[in-house]
């Protein structure tokens, strides 16, 4: 099963992490290291590593070790899935709450 939509949206609720995601999305399929990211974003390498770990936990970023360095790339599928989960559950509730209103009147 894929990641929880809650974890995905929680990971994206932080503006710095959104910045990291935006940067990775501009890189397309390219892989970057925390050091490269830190050089381009206004934050330390430690901060970048921490945010990448949180994004990785939510399934939004894949990490791969190449020798001594870890390279990261965006894996956006959980975002799409989280959005379609929201749409599906939202539609279910619209229908149920209409039925509840009819039931109560």
């Amino acid at each position, binding site marked *: 099963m894929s990641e929880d939509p*809650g974890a995905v*949206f929680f990971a994206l609720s932080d503006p710095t992490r959104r910045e990291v995601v935006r940067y990775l999305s501009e890189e397309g399929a390219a892989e970057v290291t925390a050091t490269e990211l830190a050089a381009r974003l206004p934050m330390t390498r430690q901060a970048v590593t921490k945010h990448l770990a949180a994004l990785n936990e939510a399934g939004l970023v894949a990490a791969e070790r190449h020798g001594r360095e870890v390279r990261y790339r965006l894996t956006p599928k959980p975002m799409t899935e989280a959005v379609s989960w929201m749409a599906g559950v939202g539609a279910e509730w619209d229908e149920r709450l209409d039925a509840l209103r009819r039931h*109560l*009147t």
Partner: protein
Amino acid sequence: MTDEGGIRRAVELSCSSRRVWSALTEAHELSAWFGAEVELDLRPGGLARFLWPDGTARRAIVEVVVPQRHLVLRWLPFEEAPDGGRRQRRGSRIAFTIEDRGPASRLTIIEEGGASPLHPGDAAGSGRREDRPALHGIVATA
């Protein structure tokens, strides 16, 4: 959308909170509007079973019961096919909150699929990790 990426809906209902509570918690009433036939053991830790017309069933655990105010259910992370097979689903949580509005009431529902809104956890969603072992324990004995 909620901060946790969940669904929030609020409806004004022209009846008392007592009446709304009964519609949410009496199995025969719930079955009349939810879209599934419901069995419900209304107490914290109690099991609820939802049987859809297509034969699919899902179970939920009752987490919070505050009569006429608050009901929280957590879906177990699977559904059962009519042939008994199990398919994984998201173990989301539904929170119902009823507010008195004179002779009327307002019902808010929040369904969230991830980290517990009661334990937002840290950046990586530690609430999620705390939730799972407990749920697995319940599934094993359900």
